[in-house]
């Protein structure tokens, strides 16, 4: 049967006025009006709320909403030796910004970035929590390299660090580990490097290995990317609708995350639109190998719209299965 998942981030503030207000708390902490403990409590309450909302919507594989993350790279960058956190720069073609990591010297592991967060999330969740990391190529590409001057070496060194993180995540109980590689969509000529780096990152990892590709055209990555050892490939078919053909025209022997609800626009998809997509994809790939998902992280949306999209997604999948897959 079709399953559902999410890509990663989730709105940090809620449309519910009674929900813990992380935005307020961060301001108050800045002004010295609340303690670090109080802020930490609000972080934890927010993460629990986000987990609950995904579970209540009926999502099968959830995330912790990356509530502690300001962007995709800083959580890792600040825990890697040889990296400084730089200035704000636009994140792909969005009106959001990330802090650009600056590579000052050879990179090496300093601390785990996501393991405690994963443990907390899974301890408060009934559904499996997917651990999400920036992929090694994207992490290298989004950084300003002032040391290696060689994207290959930097990427592979980062892969080794991410592998350490991944191993510890698996030890902590992660059943799914996802690498986000949006940069790969814009640099398909680096596919060999990316595959090598992904293999290195997932070396000796036995849980489900996921690669998620968003914000770009994936055509030139196929069929080569299907040779990699990842178990699941996720594709955003909203930003580039032609990506759907890539799925349909290739012998897609892996599991698929179909990123098909627009996580960057508030317009809610109609059931018919979704059914059309599901129909096309389930003809080529067995339904039990498919996860339906929003196109990217939901944090681009106002909270109440993010919740609506998840509910719509789960409802559409349920109705589709009932009507077309007889389950």
């Amino acid at each position, binding site marked *: 049967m079709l399953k559902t998942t999410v890509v990663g981030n989730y709105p*940090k*503030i809620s449309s519910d006025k009674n929900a813990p207000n992380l935005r307020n708390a*961060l301001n108050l902490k800045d002004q010295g009006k609340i303690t670090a403990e109080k802020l930490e409590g609000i972080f934890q309450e927010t993460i629990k709320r986000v987990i609950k909302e995904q579970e209540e919507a009926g999502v099968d594989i959830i995330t912790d909403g990356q509530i502690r993350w300001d*962007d995709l790279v800083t959580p890792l960058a600040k825990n890697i030796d040889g990296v400084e956190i730089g200035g704000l720069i*636009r994140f792909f073609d969005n009106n959001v910004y990330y802090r650009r990591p600056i590579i000052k010297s050879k990179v090496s592991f300093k601390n785990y970035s996501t393991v405690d967060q994963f443990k907390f999330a899974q301890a408060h969740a009934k559904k499996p929590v997917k651990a999400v990391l920036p992929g090694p190529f994207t992490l290298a590409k989004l950084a300003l390299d002032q040391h290696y001057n060689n994207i290959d070496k930097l990427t592979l060194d980062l892969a080794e660090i991410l592998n350490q993180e991944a191993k510890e995540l698996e030890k902590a109980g992660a059943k799914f580990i996802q690498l986000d590689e949006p940069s790969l969509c814009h640099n398909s000529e680096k596919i060999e490097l990316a595959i090598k780096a992904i293999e290195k990152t997932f070396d000796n990892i036995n849980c489900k290995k996921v690669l998620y590709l968003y914000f770009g055209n994936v055509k030139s990555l196929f069929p080569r990317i299907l040779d990699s050892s990842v178990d699941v490939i996720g594709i955003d078919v909203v930003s580039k609708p032609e990506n759907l053909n890539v799925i349909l025209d290739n012998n897609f022997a892996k599991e698929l995350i179909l990123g098909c609800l627009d996580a960057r*626009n*508030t317009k809610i998809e109609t059931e018919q639109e979704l059914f059309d997509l599901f129909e096309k994809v389930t003809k080529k790939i067995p339904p039990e190998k498919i996860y339906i998902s929003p196109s990217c992280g939901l*944090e681009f949306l*106002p909270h109440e*719209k993010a919740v609506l999209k998840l509910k719509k997604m789960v409802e559409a999948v349920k109705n589709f299965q009932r009507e077309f897959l007889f389950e």
Partner: protein
Amino acid sequence: MLETTSVGSFPKPDYLVKARNQLAKGEISQEKLKELELQAIKEVILMQEEVGLDILVHGEMERGDMTTYFAENWEGFTISSPVRSYGNRYYRKPVVVGPVRRPKPVTVEYYKYAQSLTKKPVKGMMTGPYTMCDWSFNEYYPNREALTLAFADVIHQEAVDLEKAGAKYIQIDEPAISTRPEEIDLVIEAMRIVTLGLKAKTISHLCYGDFRTIYPKILELPVDILDMEFANSNFENLEIFEKPKFTKMISLGVVDAHTHKIEEKETVKNNLKKALRVFEPEKVLVDPDCGLKTRTPEEAKAKLKVIVEAVREVKDELGLK
């Protein structure tokens, strides 16, 4: 030549920030807030005259977010609940739910008021159509192109009204221009609609983008003056504009609008001289990198002062009039 100006926004004085909060809670009336907005505009006009700037702005005292402001005053929108842009900064986004329409002028009254207070030219100030599209949620138009062109129509109407009201400089900001370099033809087409038939000097502010991806294509943008930041990149961006030759006028950003630190006059002078090796002096205006609304009023004034002094001295030193 080398006229000094600013990009558009100024910090709101404390009494105005307080009043805006009070309005949101229903504690004061719209009329009372407007009184205070006009007072704040008067104060910044006087401050700009005191500092000695050549082309003035009204400081956008009546505006919050540069896209949401227009969405609130046009038809076809709702406003979203807050969405995060970075760090702990959130903003409400326009949501296009129907055809975009302009029932009446939005910026003309404030422009006229500001201009009535000074003999120096005050800029008419608007957000560009492509940026309006890129920063809005779209639940109505079939695609980005249709939405952008719909915005271009209403913004053109507003520009015509500003010109009728006497505006000699009309600015249409497009900070989103470098987000998707593959859409630059749409940006250009939309701007053509906006500036069609205007006799005023037109300006477009483009900020914090990777200019490399859109130069020299941006020379096709149908405006007279391009306003761009250089302090932010420590003037390393200058080399992008060396070849091919820059054919428009440029409003050169020489101080960083997003730091507390007030630049040293000598630094600004040296950077300006560097820039004058790339751009012809007759084609150059000088301003801060971006709107000043994130600074304190004291910082904003100090940054403008250093610009005016630096320009005065550079003109002397280079024998320019």
